């Protein structure tokens, strides 16, 4: 029996790094400190696994599958590389290279989660901090359109609500917790104050709060929130010693999208004229921040990057996966560590069934079910080492606690093989 301590969890953007994984033989027997989802990931990692590569539904050798993948990608005029967010950074780097050598497009799941956050950052910036700053200093914590108990289960305990910090020694009692959402959630129940905002009304409320922070008294209700509540919250925010807004897809996926974040950034920036205030996106996939980070240092752009002209171009809405698929552009696609067939609107997803789609995946998913080539891979953070970036942008080393199930290769290794074959095919052409 071996116990691995300080193991980093490869599920959500919290990247909790205090897991204790017990292994006997090559099997995981326990996952201490893990949340329910994390435990499910570790304990069930061998269930429903894909065991052999397939090409057009028929079992194939890894080499045959790689060859089929490389041929499809090398001959494509508009290949799409998509996913990236649930694997380690080495694999992500190879996805960028694959898009580059095929003259294709690389996009990652942030285009359908916090892509709008990035668009806002590109417009107006962002005042942010590492999660420890929140734990150590924040006496006002707001969750806006985010609900950690559903997707970031240990966030409250490790970072934001209950932990005792350097200047918040009382923990929960030292913090005022605000929740803004269109519906009541478990977060509302934890919060000291729940503000229910009308559907699609976040933008107006954020602007009104900013105006109130600037000293304009709000006199009418905004998005269903009473004026006095807005003025009072603005006052409370200004008087905080240090405040944070954790925002989620409630802002990025609703009407207004990046402009909702733009307004949130503006509110937080404004508050810095009075006190210390920061905001942090609740990144979902454990390494979606890494997908943005690596793609940015390699190409200059975080997602939706087109290499058709040999150099990178960037335009979400044009080179983002949903838009490209909805317009029927890609003539081949490789999906790494993602399931767009289930996570994209159906009228975009269905294009994947019309073209050669190559999927690197551990388990059967709707995307593997409609893929021409499926290559099973090892699970990063359980069977493979690597790097992942936490929601606040800091990276940690993922552990390998067991050998890959069925001896499959890692995303990085398979991508290396594909990159090498594509290069050779392109040289020949």
């Amino acid at each position: 029996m071996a116990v691995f301590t300080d193991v980093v969890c490869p599920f959500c953007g919290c990247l909790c790094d205090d897991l204790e994984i017990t292994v006997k033989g090559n099997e995981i027997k326990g996952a201490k400190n893990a949340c329910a989802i994390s435990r499910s990931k570790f304990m069930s990692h061998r269930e429903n696994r894909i065991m052999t590569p397939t090409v057009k539904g028929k079992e194939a050798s890894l080499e045959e599958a790689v060859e089929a993948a490389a041929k499809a990608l090398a001959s494509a005029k508009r290949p799409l590389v998509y996913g990236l967010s649930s694997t380690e950074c080495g694999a992500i780097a190879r996805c960028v290279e694959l898009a580059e050598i095929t003259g294709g497009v690389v996009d990652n799941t942030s285009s359908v989660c916090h892509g709008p956050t990035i668009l806002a950052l590109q417009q107006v910036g962002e005042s942010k901090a590492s999660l420890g700053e929140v734990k150590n200093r924040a006496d006002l914590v707001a969750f806006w359109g985010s609900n950690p108990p559903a997707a970031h289960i240990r966030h409250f305990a490790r970072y934001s609500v209950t932990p005792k910090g350097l200047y918040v020694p009382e923990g929960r009692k030292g913090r005022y917790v605000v929740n803004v959402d269109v519906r009541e959630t478990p977060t509302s129940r934890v919060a000291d104050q729940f503000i229910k905002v009308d559907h699609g009304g976040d933008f107006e409320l954020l602007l009104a709060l900013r105006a109130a922070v600037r000293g304009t008294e709000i006199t009418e209700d905004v998005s269903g929130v009473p004026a006095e509540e807005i003025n009072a919250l603005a006052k409370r925010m200004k008087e905080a010693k240090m405040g944070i807004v954790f925002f989620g897809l409630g802002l990025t996926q609703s009407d207004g999208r990046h402009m909702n974040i733009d307004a949130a950034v503006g509110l937080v920036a404004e508050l810095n004229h009075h006190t210390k205030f920061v905001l942090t996106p609740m990144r979902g996939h454990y390494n979606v921040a890494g997908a943005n980070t690596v793609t940015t240092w390699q190409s200059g752009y975080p997602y939706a990057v087109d290499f058709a002209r040999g150099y990178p171009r960037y335009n979400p809405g044009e080179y983002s996966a949903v838009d490209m698929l909805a317009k029927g552009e890609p003539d081949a696609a490789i999906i790494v560590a993602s399931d767009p067939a289930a996570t994209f609107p159906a009228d975009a997803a269905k294009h994947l069934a019309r073209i050669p789609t190559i999927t690197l995946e551990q388990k059967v998913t709707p995307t593997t079910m409609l893929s021409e080539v499926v290559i099973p891979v090892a699970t990063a953070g359980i069977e493979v080492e690597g790097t992942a970036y936490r929601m606040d942008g800091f990276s940690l080393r993922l552990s390998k606690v067991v050998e890959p199930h069925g001896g499959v290769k890692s995303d990085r290794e398979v991508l290396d093989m594909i990159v090498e074959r594509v290069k050779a095919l392109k040289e020949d052409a």
Partner: protein
Amino acid sequence: MGDLRIKGGYVYDPLNGVDGDAMDVLISGGKVVENVGRDAKVIDAKGKLVMAGGVDVHSHIAGSKINIGRLMRPEDHRKDVVPRTRVTRAGVGYSCPSTFVAGYRYAQMGYTAVMEAAMPPLGARHVHEELNDTPIIDKTAFTLFGNNHFTLKYVKEGDLEKLKAFISWLLRATRGYAVKIVNPGGVENWKWGKNVGGLDDLVYNYEVSPRQIVTSLAQANEELGLPHTIHLHCNNLGVPGNYETTIDTMEAVKGIKPADGRKATVHVAHCQFNSLDGDNWMNVKSGASKVAKYVNANEHVTIDLGQVIFTDTTTMTGDGPWQFRLWNITGNKWVNSDVEMEAGAGVVPYTFRKDNPANAIQWGIGLELALLIEDPWRVYMTTDHPNGGPFTYYPTVIAWLMSRQARTDIMREMNKSVLRRTTLPNIYREYTFGEIATVTRAATAKALGLKDKGHLGIGADGDVSVYHLDPTAWRPSMYRDLEKSLARAAYTVKGGEIVVKDGEVTATPLGSTFWVDSKVPEKLEAEMMKEVEADFDKYYTVGFRNYPVEDAYLPTGIRVEARGRWAR
């Protein structure tokens, strides 16, 4: 890799007293040697300028700060796109180049070593990941110490021994090369939305002053025998009148005994931003002559310029409160990033304009510092990339240093403040090629303690730059030719391999990353670690054992041993 003979060029190698002699440089096994085999490949350098590869003492090329710059500035990338070639990766350039492009472009100018000047410990893994994607050049990264909880704690307790033990451990844990200090105390106060106003203000909760932080770190740095001095971004950066703080800071570390083998105890980074006189941005004037006077009289100080370039660039520093101030001045987009227990950063796009009186003065200050400080071994050419401007403008800066006409020509297009509020119009000095080799190579390598770099003596690294320029025929009026030749090296040789030919990248080996290993007594280290671990468990959000950078992140790491008392 075979032997190499760089034949008959005009060689400038100030560390070895070579000043333009026509001679051969021989390389074998990646090092400069006395003899090479008969089948050595020959580079014909006749009539060309030959120097050691450039060594940049202060730049921002890797890690979270520059990557935030890249992330937030698609509009910057659009104007400078770089297609892939058979040898090189695609990317973008201008003020926040992608990692690959940064490596290529340094090499294309003949630079072979670059120091990343600000690494937050928590972001060290990220810095090293990017450095591993920055080809050709050798690298180091300077670890941030000036606002670290444990630094402040040990300074408060007056425990210099534990401070040394902490520095030693953290440099190793982050694979860092030098002690970097940014706005000591000010960044910690910024975490409450405040700053410090000078050397004797106090840091909240710790009740220590910037003066105590700087002197303690400098003292510890020298006692540990670290290869480089403390590398300091002074308080009050960008505040008119700050030259006084700068001189006070230099004076504060004057009495400290330098480590063996050097005279300096402090390097003041991007000194231009800290040499402002006047009371506000309306009446700002140059304080460069006062700073230069102090530096001339005091051997314990080295500086680099942080020269301003008139262009659209991206400012990024570990100085959060300064970036907030700059955001308020400009209204441009602003990113702030605070790092728990240790550091912070800010990023704001900025355009230096010739018609802006303050910018014109800032431009003048950088050059005044370079020209008024007499000893080229103590003043280094940088733009504090990308803060003063992109590093790709180094050839232009060198032209200004070498040609009074170049300076006069551009001053005609500038706001007249530069004529009235700097002393630049009255300065006639023009750098020689030997002095250029000093301020871009020999002196920086020496200041960094990189003993095999910056020169071409026997045993030096085989890093050489050859330029299409005949220094015997060159005159200051030909400054445009100079710029062109320096921008695209005829050859850049890295570790004996030709990596650039006629300005084009021909090979992309991964250079080395140097880091410093220093020693303190084991018992002292154990005591310090116990304290650090206890606080770590309480206040950090990453585990103590997940904090140090793993060896996997330094595939080409080179350990440099410090020469302190306890060194083996």
